[in-house]
């Protein structure tokens, strides 16, 4: 097999350890190191995602049989209700859950890698709160459209991320100080949100509160477009930067020695990760702890900092939580409550475990 492929991706047998190979594009412009473990994990996770999607389509009070489901997808639904429930309600909602989860997890993995800080996920360091404050401002005080709310979320998230970068300073990004500065900024953003909630009529406050808890209720194709575009924008960037991201994780000195422009790389990656957070928040509200937990779980399973498994796990986490939120209780609850309780517990466990490790 030739190492210089003719525009086709091909595997290169090489001196790498067993179970690893390098995926290269034409003229070696892009290359990926693949481990067998990561590939298997991704395949497994992808199967799980498909199974979950299938379950989301079948679950619910309105029963749809398997043949009807297949027929609906082939374009001739048995009746209008089946068409409506499958194609307009369950499918877009499940896809939104998967994509929002994937977006949050990807952003979390980037934040954690770039800062080399396992706790620095956007929901802990106040970027999500900044996005929520920006979106609330547009939603409550300006009364904007979906696009304008997304813009507000992006501006808010960018301001929060910028403040953190400025305040933490160049050397402060790794430390816990960064996390605490983020906590303070988050408190500030939340105070602003609480204040805005008191300035409107109660009906708007109810709508905003539901959104602030984090809910996927009524999400459909328009919301799916926003989050899908955001993910499509970031994918080529990540493809381009994945090697540098991995080098950054080894520390600034080594990265500089290997010829990586550390500050520029960090800035680009953080801006795009912030964009992801903002679009996820604009779509489903400030859902907590998915961005924190998914990269951790992925690291444990794959043994590497690869982003794709983290994204798949994030999607699985949110979609599973949304199914639980819809059907596990006597009446549906917002998915944000499920993730905050499970994810908060996970966060506590993580802190206690890390504390134990640093003691021993």
């Amino acid at each position, binding site marked *: 097999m030739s190492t210089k492929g003719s525009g086709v991706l091909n595997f290169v047998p090489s001196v790498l350890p067993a179970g690893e190979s390098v995926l290269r594009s034409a003229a070696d412009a892009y290359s990926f190191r693949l481990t067998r473990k990561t590939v298997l994990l991704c395949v497994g996770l992808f199967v799980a995602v498909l199974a979950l999607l299938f379950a989301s389509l079948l679950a619910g009070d309105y029963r749809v049989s398997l043949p009807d489901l297949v027929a609906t997808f082939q374009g001739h639904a048995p009746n209008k209700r089946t068409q409506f429930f499958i194609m307009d309600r369950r499918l877009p909602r499940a896809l939104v859950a998967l994509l929002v989860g994937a977006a949050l997890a990807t952003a979390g993995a980037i934040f954690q890698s770039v800062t080399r800080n396992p706790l620095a996920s956007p929901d802990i360091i106040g970027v999500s709160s900044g996005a929520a404050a920006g979106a609330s401002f547009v939603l409550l005080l300006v009364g904007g459209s979906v696009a304008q709310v997304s813009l507000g979320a992006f501006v808010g998230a960018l301001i929060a991320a910028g403040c953190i970068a400025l305040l933490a300073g160049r050397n402060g990004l790794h430390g816990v100080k960064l996390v605490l500065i983020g906590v*303070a900024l988050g408190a*500030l953003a939340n105070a602003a949100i609480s204040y805005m909630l*008191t300035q409107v009529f109660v009906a708007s406050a109810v709508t905003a509160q539901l959104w*602030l808890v984090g809910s996927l209720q009524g999400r459909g194709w328009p919301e799916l477009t926003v989050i899908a575009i955001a993910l499509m924008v970031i994918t080529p960037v990540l493809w381009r930067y994945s090697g540098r991201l991995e080098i950054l994780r080894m520390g600034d000195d080594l990265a500089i020695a290997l010829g990586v422009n550390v500050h520029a790389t960090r800035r680009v990656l953080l801006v795009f990760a912030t964009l992801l957070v903002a679009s996820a928040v604009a779509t489903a509200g400030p859902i907590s702890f998915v961005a924190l937990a998914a990269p951790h779980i992925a690291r444990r399973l794959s043994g590497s900092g690869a982003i794709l498994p983290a994204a798949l796990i994030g999607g699985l986490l949110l979609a599973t939580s949304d199914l639980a939120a819809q059907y596990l209780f006597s009446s549906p609850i917002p998915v944000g409550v499920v993730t905050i309780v499970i994810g908060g517990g996970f966060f506590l466990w993580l802190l206690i475990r890390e*504390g*134990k490790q640093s003691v021993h």
Partner: protein
Amino acid sequence: MASNNLLRGTSDAQRVGSRIAGTPKTFAGMVIALAVLFITVVLSFSLGAKSIPPFEVAQALLGQGQENIVAIVGQLRLSRTVIGLISGCALGLAGTLMQAITRNPIADPGILGVNAGAALGVVVGILLTGALGVTSTMAFAMIGAAVAAGAVMMLSSSYAGASSPVRLTLSGVALAAILSGVTNAIVLTDESILDTFRFWQVGSLTSRPVAEASLFLPIIVVGIVLALFLGGPLNALALGDDSAVALGSNPARIRLVGLLAVTILCGGATALAGPISFVGLLAPHLVRRFTGPDLRRLIPLAMLVAPIILLLSDILGRLIGGGSEVPVGIMCAFVGAPLLIVLLRRGRSRSIS
């Protein structure tokens, strides 16, 4: 560095021996704090949408002068000033105690989730019984605060807290997030609960008339007395559990009494004025710069300084809001969060990470 300070401070205190209130410097500090508090109270009576000169305030309090001024001073300004004083004292003491018990300079009932626990208690109370009276609000707030404070103490004695104050703070943040997540879910089930809750959760000194506020006084006084007696024992605890035992203290009992005091103070303050953050963090930090780490001086001074911060925030919120005022809880967050960031960025904060 912080532990060095603590050691030095305590041996200082032991050198001055059995004198309880400490040095003339402490006495001077108390006098100054009282004077500033008095000025703040006067300002709280006179400034606002309608400014009233102090002399007319005094007249109005005696029931003389124009009718509308008597109404403003005797009802609106009096109640918010009294509530500010009571809840300020309580929050300042609670923050100081939490910092001492968890040995964590960035502990605050708001940041560590105790206020969130009290808020959850109140919302659960509203859900279970419909509307809440004054005493039942207080009871539910205290149950919620007790559960959250207990959880924080457990975390602080676990590896997570023992190994690093920052981990404890983050655990508290996670706890607060979980508690407020549940609170929000409950609030969403009923529009009328949400309508009450959204105004309560910002933290305000104007939500109750003075007659209701005074019902809180006895229980909060119990908390204040407990806190004032805890200075010496907590000094021993600051040396570490082993040394505290060697000095004849019982760390478990000190923590339990401290927990009780924190619960009473936070639960009471939250039931009275809503969840207010950062006052409990800032007061002891400001005071510590003058007193050093000796808790026998720190606790009474923090009790006087915290209501100054709270009332000044409230006055500021009245003045900058224009037509509508900014609630005090929001003002405290906007003043307190930047100060927390300053504290974190300063060199001293190296000792807390």
